[in-house]
């Protein structure tokens, strides 16, 4: 029972994810995408980075790699799948989750801590939190603006599939607390079922007590 952390050419948060999961006592290994998904994978992390140089669109190339067929099949069977940052872009490009992550409103790469309000605490990725709880996790992206047609956004809201929204320290969700111009401050969403989630902020970078806040641990506990 091992969580597979999928490494593409240009992934660079794979080792961070490994270290964070190991710290939580969750068995994990890095898997080169071209070697295929190990049959006994108990979970899948699509890590952050700059796979294939963000050519065409961030995540577009990795989302068409053959291993994505295996990941989609595993997701349908209920295997937990988490896409973080570039992994979120790959997940949305690959149809695991709705919407798209595109160029920040600022047109700049932004690397900064943000506050997130937990919108749905009844998922594997958020059950460590309370609904409405505010956590602090860093972002580091140039293409994190969540875009989605309005009718799909309504569906996501109706089905309670928004995991996190960017907010201030008190949980207020406003345009000022929206770092990248995402629709309705959405920072992370669920796929068709709650075993699949993507988010732009980096929980694995907020999981080791030695280097700062550990609010991200709760997200990674979705693999427990």
């Amino acid at each position, binding site marked *: 029972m091992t969580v597979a952390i999928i490494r593409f050419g240009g992934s660079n948060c794979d080792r961070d994810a490994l270290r964070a999961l190991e710290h939580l006592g969750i068995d994990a290994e890095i898997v080169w995408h071209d070697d295929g998904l190990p049959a006994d994978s108990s979970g899948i992390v699509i890590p952050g980075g700059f796979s294939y140089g963000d050519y065409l669109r961030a995540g577009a190339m990795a989302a068409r790699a053959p291993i994505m067929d295996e990941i989609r099949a595993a997701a349908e069977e209920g295997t937990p799948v988490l896409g973080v940052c570039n992994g979120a872009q790959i997940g949305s490009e690959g149809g695991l989750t709705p*919407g*798209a992550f595109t160029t920040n409103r600022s047109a700049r790469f932004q690397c900064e801590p943000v506050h997130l309000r937990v919108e749905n605490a009844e998922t594997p990725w958020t059950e460590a939190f309370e609904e409405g709880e505010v956590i602090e996790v860093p972002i580091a992206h140039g293409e994190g603006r969540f875009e989605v047609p309005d009718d799909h956004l309504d569906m996501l809201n109706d089905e309670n599939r928004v995991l996190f929204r960017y907010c201030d320290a008190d949980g207020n969700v406003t345009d000022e607390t929206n770092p990248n111009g995402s629709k309705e401050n959405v920072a992370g969403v669920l796929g068709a079922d709650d075993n699949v989630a993507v988010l732009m902020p980096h929980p694995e970078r907020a999981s080791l007590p030695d280097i700062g806040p550990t609010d991200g641990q709760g997200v990674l506990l979705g693999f427990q």
Partner: protein
Amino acid sequence: MTAYTATVTVRLKRGVLDPEAETTQQALERLGFELDDLRSADRFEVDLDAADADDAEARATEMAERLLANPTIHDYTVEVAEA
């Protein structure tokens, strides 16, 4: 089979924010140009052999659907000409 060039033009849907185009417009204005608006687009020229123009267009359209465009945020056009 005939050689064709399919030109696929991918642009953001109307109403989708384009920060790169805004930044480019600002740079043009800084250079002293006057303009009302600016839109950018990606253009792909695909050379392919096909039975006829319809076949070439169908294949280029599938390329746009499956990779060149992201239907969530993009519209695209496909034009085919004999190479």
